[in-house]
């Protein structure tokens, strides 16, 4: 659906994209990178709104550099921007109808599609009220609706979970998944949170500093080990729970280290999970010692670190979703 070939974008002072070559197929594709990694620049180029400095890019078979294809691409693609983009004094219905007409839908079709789309994103009676009174979650749904209303072949969603609480985040991710499975529309979704994308996406592309770090199917991630952070309570029997835990794990051949310099250093043990067994092992050790398990979570420090050196340390078993996922790339 999208193919770029050594695509570069240089501004006078910064290089936003540096010889980026990626292929994005049908399905849900995550584009992960810290703020300023070049995600939004890439979307702008793909929409035909900003010329690339060098290299080429194709969207749905159209060459973005061809001036006549910009309109053709934008007619077939939906775009949900990262920032707020909704006028507060009109209702969601009126706004989405207007945006549908701006995409070329005739008036009657625009109204029908708007009603359908707003229902699909989960806006019901409130759609007749002015947008100004909506919650962040509702606004995100309106933004998503305007990207879907013209039934595009592909949507670009720029940070759709921004500003949402955990429940809203899960709902939005579920919705993104449905865009592909139920609506049959391919999705390119950006985020700086790898954790949430690997749950939703078929394929994840990681960029940093405009360079491609990695592009792989999320299935590949499940094979790969991850860093696990563990915190336990102290008990009367074991006044220093962390130390006892470390020794017990060592006895079973599991290397641990303390995340010096990280929040909670000293109370937290970091270890490399080799798969399901490690989680069970930790659970058993904690239970044997009679300690309380305060947390067991995946730890990442920075996206580039996660993906450096290939498979050394990376990602999560997909079925371990009950384990809280840590945000990656907060620095950025």
């Amino acid at each position, binding site marked *: *659906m999208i193919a770029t070939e050594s695509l570069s974008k240089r501004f006078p002072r910064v290089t936003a994209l540096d010889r980026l070559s990626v292929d994005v197929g*049908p399905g849900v594709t995550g584009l992960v990178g810290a703020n300023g990694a070049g995600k939004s620049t890439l979307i702008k180029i793909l929409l035909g709104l900003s010329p690339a400095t060098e290299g080429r890019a194709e969207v749905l078979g159209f060459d973005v550099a061809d001036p006549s294809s910009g309109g053709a691409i934008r*007619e077939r*693609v939906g*775009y949900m921007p990262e920032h707020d*983009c909704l006028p507060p004094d*009109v209702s969601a219905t*009126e706004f989405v109808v207007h945006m549908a007409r701006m995409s070329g*839908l005739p008036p009657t079709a625009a109204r029908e599609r708007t009603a359908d789309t707003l229902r699909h994103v989960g806006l019901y009676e409130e759609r007749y009220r002015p947008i100004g009174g909506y919650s962040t979650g509702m606004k995100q749904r309106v933004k998503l609706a305007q990207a879907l209303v013209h039934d595009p072949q592909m949507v670009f969603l720029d940070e759709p979970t921004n500003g949402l609480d955990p429940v809203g985040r899960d709902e939005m991710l579920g919705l993104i998944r449905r865009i592909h499975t139920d609506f049959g529309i*391919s999705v390119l979704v950006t985020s700086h949170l790898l954790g949430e994308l690997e749950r939703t996406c078929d394929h994840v592309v990681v960029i940093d500093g405009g360079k491609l770090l990695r592009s792989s199917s999320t299935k590949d991630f499940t094979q790969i080990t991850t860093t696990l952070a563990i915190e336990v309570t102290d008990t009367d029997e074991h006044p220093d729970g962390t130390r006892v835990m470390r020794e017990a794990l060592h006895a079973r051949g599991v290397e641990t280290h303390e995340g010096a310099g990280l929040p909670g250093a000293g109370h937290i043990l970091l270890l490399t999970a080799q798969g399901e067994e490690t989680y069970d092992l930790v659970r058993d050790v904690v239970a044997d010692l009679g300690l309380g398990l305060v947390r067991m979570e995946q730890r990442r420090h920075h996206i580039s670190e996660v993906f450096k050196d290939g498979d050394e340390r990376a990602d999560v078993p997909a079925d371990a979703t009950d384990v809280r996922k840590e945000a990656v790339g907060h620095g950025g």
Partner: protein
Amino acid sequence: MAVEQSRTQAPARAGEQPTARAGEQTRIHDIGYRSYDGPRLGRAYARRSLYSQSLRGAYGLGRSAKSKVLPMLLFTVMCVPALIMVAVAVATQANDLPVDYTRYAVIMQALIGLYLASQAPQAVSRDLRFKTVPLYFSRPIETADYVRAKYAGLASALFILTAAPLVVLYVGALLAKLDFTDQTKGFAQGLLSVALLSLLFAGIGLVISAVTPRRGFGVAAVIAVMTISYGAVSVVQAIAFEQSSSDVIPWLGLFSPITLIDGVQSAFLGASSAFPGGVGPSNGQGVVYVLVVLGLIAGCYGLLMRRYRKVGL
């Protein structure tokens, strides 16, 4: 074609959906996703849609009840004097309307300025402030389409505002059985004049408002430009008249929008000049007036294009 292929590969497209969802009792109305196979009317249609939305918006239509108040009030106030004049003309069997068609807009210029100040910022500052502009440019339209639609929308709104009272006057004049040829000619000249006025005012208003995302600043700036330029020109013209240097009066008129229109119509559209002492521009000066007006309209369009090329996404 690659595109079509990927489309059909998608797991559960439209048609299968209703059956898949039928068993789900939680959402009775959920009839599944329906894809759209109808026509897509493209860029020119999108531009027209934006135009009609801007024009409607300039009278508060499709917006909150609150935003309808001012434009509708101004429209009414704009037409009431025309109605009164017509009533008087009919009642007194007058030979002519109390005010020329071309003069009406000049007399009501404060109202036109107020309307422009309230609606030009809402036409463009809103999109800038709430960052709706990037959404437009993620659609098939391009910068030029956006600028043209907005410009045409506001100019049309101003034309409706300024031409409506002329229509009232014209209909009234015919009812009062005034001379048909005279009235039609005057009406046509009046329409041409307000058309020019609408284009000029809309351009100036939009350029000023497009600079700032803050509506308040836009309103204040438009009012300031309109009143200060007119005030300054009138005062200096009055001084020139007092000192009997009438030759400079027409040249001074080049420096404010409404006096520009006044100059053009007194040179070419048979209007009597509203300048002090009725010293309108000569035909030669009239050409300069026309050139300045057209230059300003083109300049405003150019500035808007430049402005929006940068706003982008």
